[in-house]
């Protein structure tokens, strides 16, 4: 079943075409990778998908509990629809405790009254335990080591019980060991919560290992899509990364 369908999506900033005529179709339960050189339009696409930017033209359609059309996309409504995200440059609530950061993830559920205050605490503790952060629950988020901050941001995103999780460069700044742990974590999240995961990543070992399908962007265009194997042998992808000469 398709959960996200993007048709002819275009976003211009003045004369710059950040995203041009992109078509995507993402199935439930997939782990999708978005790759491409810096400035290829990956994060712009994320921002379009989460309502931060309004598309210049084209359609975005979510098929979750309800059907969500382009005009319904508002940043603060995305978690209500079931779409949660993390950010490229970690955006935690720095002067709040680790526990309060996760508790804020329950905001949309508390707001809808679909969870009680007590349950939100129980589930926050549960989530922190699963992410190995329980012993740091009273620390300020800004005092956590980098890897923990990344994981806390994912934990916070999961608290809203999303159906689609968007991860913007989750492995940025991590060493190989941390990246390996992250890989296991993402697999575990997908299986535990039955999510569709879309991630932007530059670390090819991670992308090639966990993504079932990969979309490659270059200068705002979707230049290739397919399984990791197909992508590795795709001429246009090699051109995008290494230039004409290398081919």
């Amino acid at each position, binding site marked *: 079943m398709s959960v996200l369908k993007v048709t002819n999506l275009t976003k211009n900033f003045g004369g710059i075409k950040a995203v041009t005529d992109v078509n995507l179709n993402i199935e439930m339960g997939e782990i999708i990778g978005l790759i491409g050189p810096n400035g290829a339009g990956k994060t712009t696409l994320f921002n379009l998908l*989460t309502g*931060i930017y309004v598309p210049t033209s084209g359609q975005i359609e979510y098929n979750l509990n309800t059907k969500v059309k382009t005009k319904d996309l508002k*940043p*603060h*409504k*995305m*978690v*209500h629809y079931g779409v*949660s*995200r993390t*950010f490229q440059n970690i*955006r*935690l*609530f*720095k*002067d*709040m*405790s*680790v526990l*309060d950061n996760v*508790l*804020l*993830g*329950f*905001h*949309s559920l*508390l*707001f809808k009254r679909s969870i009680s*205050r*007590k349950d*939100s*605490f129980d589930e926050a*503790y549960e989530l922190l335990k699963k992410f190995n952060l*329980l*012993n740091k*629950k*009273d*620390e*300020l988020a800004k005092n956590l080591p980098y890897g923990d901050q990344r994981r806390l941001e994912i934990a*916070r*995103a999961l608290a*809203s019980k999303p159906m689609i999780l968007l991860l913007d460069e989750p492995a940025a700044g991590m060493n190989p060991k941390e990246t390996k742990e992250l890989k296991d974590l993402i697999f575990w999240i997908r299986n535990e919560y039955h999510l569709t995961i879309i991630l932007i990543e530059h670390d090819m070992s991670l992308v090639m290992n966990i993504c079932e399908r990969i979309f490659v962007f270059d200068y705002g265009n979707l230049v290739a899509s397919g399984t990791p194997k197909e992508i590795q042998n795709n001429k246009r992808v090699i051109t995008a990364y290494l230039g004409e000469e290398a081919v």
Partner: protein
Amino acid sequence: MKKNIIIIISLLIAYLSGQYLINTGIIDSYLQLNIFLIGINIILAVSLNLITGFTGQFSLGHAAFMSIGAYTSAILTAKMGLPFIVALIASGIVSAIAGVLIGIPTLRLKGDYLAIATLGFGEIVRILALNTDYIGGAIGFNDIPQYTNWTYVFIMTVVTVLVIRYFLNSFHGRACIAIREDEIAAEAMGVNLTLYKVFAFAIGAFFAGIAGSLYANYFYFIKPDSFGFMKSVDIVVTVVFGGMGSILGSIVGAIALSVISLFLQNIPELRMVIYSIILFLVMVYRPTGLVGKKDKEGKYFKGLRKEDFQHVSAKGN
């Protein structure tokens, strides 16, 4: 539970001993005036702290809400002869409505821009009051009945602190703090920025209106210039002095600054100099304010939330 009883008992003792000291005349009218002013300043500082310290929206128009409350209360008690309790609540509500009306357009702005916009709002309110003959214009509003007494000041101060503390302890309050920390992340987690900013603004304005009402009905007389830009700055100074994002800080700040200027009244030539030096020293040596630092260590709610205790006992963390 035990903690609540201790709080209630100590509040009762504070109230009764205050009442006793006023009745017996040990607290003379001059001291009484200063105590009432401290109460009003606590209400103003705590309510501005909700807007500036917790929600992160820098406002320079808090005295305008006080002024709206003061004039509303003056009209209702002096011109219409309504009971004080009605006027008190009505002033809060009128100020809150003003807060919503001014909040919706201005809260899209951030930082310096919001400060300028709220400053403009404060001036608009002052000029309007200055040019409305019905409320006395530049001459001021005279003969307001003196209803404000120790009971009203004490109860309203306690209610303000408790309501704002309760609000901050709820998930709504957490959303406000999240807005201060990172608007984009808060929005991505489902926090409706406009709703919560306006909400915080309205609650802050409500209590500022109450403070204005207490003020008007204590001093017989109000004039537009009492609620000008300098008054707004005074409130901001109190909040920063006590500690942004700390309720206890605002209370301590309001008391400390009032007491300091009370003592300095004997040396009028040097008063503002010493006052400024004290502010300067506090900002240099405690940039987070008198008690601000303590609150900022992730302990906003520690010891406040019963859920924390339940988990401590149940899971042995």
